[in-house]
């Protein structure tokens, strides 16, 4: 008889305990977002306002490229810029857990690290996908944005949301404070979206900026979204492949950083 059997203790963990743990973590994390929705609403409303106000400018500037060019540029550009700024939500969710010390509290339970990450990732993914779907939907309904292939567009949105989650997780795991995070997403988000051609079409950027543009995830997001809107599978798949590689690399960095732990647990 083992030491534990001698005490009469039996494990309450059934086979589906892992799924129940993930569901509980997702529920709590959805609650954390929905109980303080200000930042989410802001990231949904801002692109819609800017698209509405700036579309005439883009349409006039890109008139020689066709009737859809200006609308497509302003919708995809604002989508990429504000989804990069929405990194504050996914990265902030992980950073907040560290600051509240709840992350180590969760680590001291039977929950696996992957279950904790899924619990964080699902609400963040839903939020990012919702943001993109709302912005594209607004472009279609309000300004007649043409979507040539809905399946390709869904693929592009999904992969861009995964990339943003990976980058967000890496930022949340590596940065030490909200001050650092604010600087990272304000400066980084603006820089990466501008370099990716989200504010000014790539062809109008200075030569040096065009040369380094592919280093920005925003470049590949713009490429995937534009190709999907035009119904070009080849261009979409190529860009989506790069986005998934970035997502995998940043997620691996986040997992490594979280697995390694911080200099000392802040639990006690």
């Amino acid at each position, binding site marked *: 008889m083992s030491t534990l059997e001698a*005490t009469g203790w039996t*494990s309450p963990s059934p086979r589906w*305990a892992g799924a129940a743990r993930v569901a509980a973590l997702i529920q*709590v994390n959805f*609650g954390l977002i929905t109980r303080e929705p200000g930042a989410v609403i802001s990231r949904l409303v801002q692109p819609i306002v800017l698209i509405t106000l700036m579309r005439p400018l883009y349409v006039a500037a890109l008139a020689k490229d066709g009737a859809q060019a200006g609308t497509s540029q302003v919708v995809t550009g604002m989508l990429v810029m504000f989804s990069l700024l929405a990194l504050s939500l996914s990265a902030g969710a992980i950073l907040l857990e560290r600051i509240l010390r709840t992350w180590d509290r969760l680590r001291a339970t039977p929950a*696996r690290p992957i279950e904790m990450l899924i619990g964080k990732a699902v609400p963040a993914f839903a939020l990012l996908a919702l943001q993109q779907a709302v912005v594209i939907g607004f472009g279609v309904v309000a300004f007649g944005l043409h979507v040539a292939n809905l399946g390709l567009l869904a693929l592009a949105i999904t992969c861009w949301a995964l990339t943003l989650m990976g980058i967000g997780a890496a930022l949340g795991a590596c940065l030490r404070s909200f001050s650092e995070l604010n600087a990272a997403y304000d400066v980084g988000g603006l820089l990466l979206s501008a370099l990716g051609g989200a504010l000014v079409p790539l062809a109008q950027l200075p030569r040096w900026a065009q040369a380094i543009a592919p280093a920005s995830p925003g470049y590949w997001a713009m490429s995937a979204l534009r190709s999907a809107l035009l119904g070009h599978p080849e261009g979409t798949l190529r860009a989506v492949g790069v986005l998934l590689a970035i997502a995998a690399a940043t997620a691996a960095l986040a997992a490594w950083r979280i697995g390694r732990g911080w200099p000392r*647990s802040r*639990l006690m």
Partner: protein
Amino acid sequence: MGSEPILAAEKLVKTYGRKRALNDFTLDVVAGEIVGLVGANGAGKTTFIEIVAGLVRPEAGRVTVGNVDAVKNPRAARKLLGVCPQETALYPSVTVAGHLRLFGTLAGLHRTALRRAVDDIAQLMQLTEVLAKPAGLLSGGQRKRVQAATALVAERPLLLLDEPTVGADPQTRSALLDVVAARAAAGAAIVYTTHYMPELAELGATVAFAHAGHVTARGSQAELSLDELFPVAAGGVS
């Protein structure tokens, strides 16, 4: 109660930079026993609990919980223990019931068993009236009770309670000590770190005195002399 230890830690070593937090730290706790782990700040009490909980890896030594090697298989060990951290770690916007359900589910409880466990621990910790309140709106004493309740919601063979009554009001302290005593009577092994010796007397706990990263004295309060309990002041163990 059984004589085989539920928790067995042997010659644990852990360093942070140049500081050796644990230096051949050895401690056993059997079923039904409450061990009061006392010692000055920096004596290694919290590091020891972090290692048992699998949050920190020791450089040397061995820890078993039940028959599970907690260093090689920390997740399996965590299924056997409940941890109450010293510092409050709650989500301000999540309700008390939400916290208890979350930690109960993470511990493997579900449906009827979970509901019953949440109701029971809420009653024992005098939290029933505030179950629907977000943690951010609670008083300091209530937050302390929620923190302890999350560790106690599922019955576990081993409980690690790290200074659970620091800054707590008398109501919180009384509720917690009652639950701890009841869990020990039901067979749980308990490590209880504190600076308040009267609490250990009230719990009928044995005392393990930690100093400079290892346990220098172990026994009942009556058995241990002042020299053993306070070796630095008495010019004893260095």
